[in-house]
């Protein structure tokens, strides 16, 4: 899933470890999220949104990701 996590984190001036400490996960999880290799749980997404002060919809590009997924199913 496409995310704006890296940009939002840099805008906030946080390191990956600092963000990880704020949302109670390991820095490896933050790296995986930024590399778009892992989709977070709803709670983690909410925590990240609060920590970075960015709406969830914007942080995880939910509209764009939904449209992409919709298209994938419509093409079936």
């Amino acid at each position, binding site marked *: 899933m496409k995310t704006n996590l890296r940009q939002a984190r840099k805008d906030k001036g946080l390191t990956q470890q600092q963000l990880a400490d704020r949302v109670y996960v*390991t820095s*490896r*999880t933050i790296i995986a999220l930024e590399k778009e290799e892992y989709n977070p749980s709803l709670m983690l997404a909410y925590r990240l949104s609060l920590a970075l002060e960015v709406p969830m919809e914007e942080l995880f590009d939910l509209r764009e990701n939904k449209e992409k997924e919709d298209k994938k199913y419509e093409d079936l």
Partner: protein
Amino acid sequence: MKIYSRKNLFGGIFYTCLALLYLWQNRGQLDDISPIDWSILACVIAAACIRFYTAFSKKTGRQAMIEENDEREKLLQLKIYRTSFWSGSFGLFLIGWFAESCAGDEAAKYVSVGIRLSAVLLLLLHILVSAAYSFIRSCRSLQ
């Protein structure tokens, strides 16, 4: 006293049991234990202390707790368990098949059949546990 990391607590208990087992095995002849064995025992006791300290210390336990409850790590572990289970069962079956083809006498053939049978039993056990787990879950969701 609050437990911050169960994993480290169990690790501490394990190392303590290991040290106690060693002492129990050598009861009555503690004077004859070689310095190398004493140093190994000291290392095991030190490991147990470190584990207990990490399990109960707020400062170090926090990181251990985060590591334990990290959702991605849990998912990864589940994937590793699944992969290792299937590759292990398949490997066991292959070893049994290979052992049978190389077996020289009757006894070796029985061993190879036993290995293959254990692979099949492992799969059956897996199916049984999965079915029981899904049954319990469906019962719980009905409540």
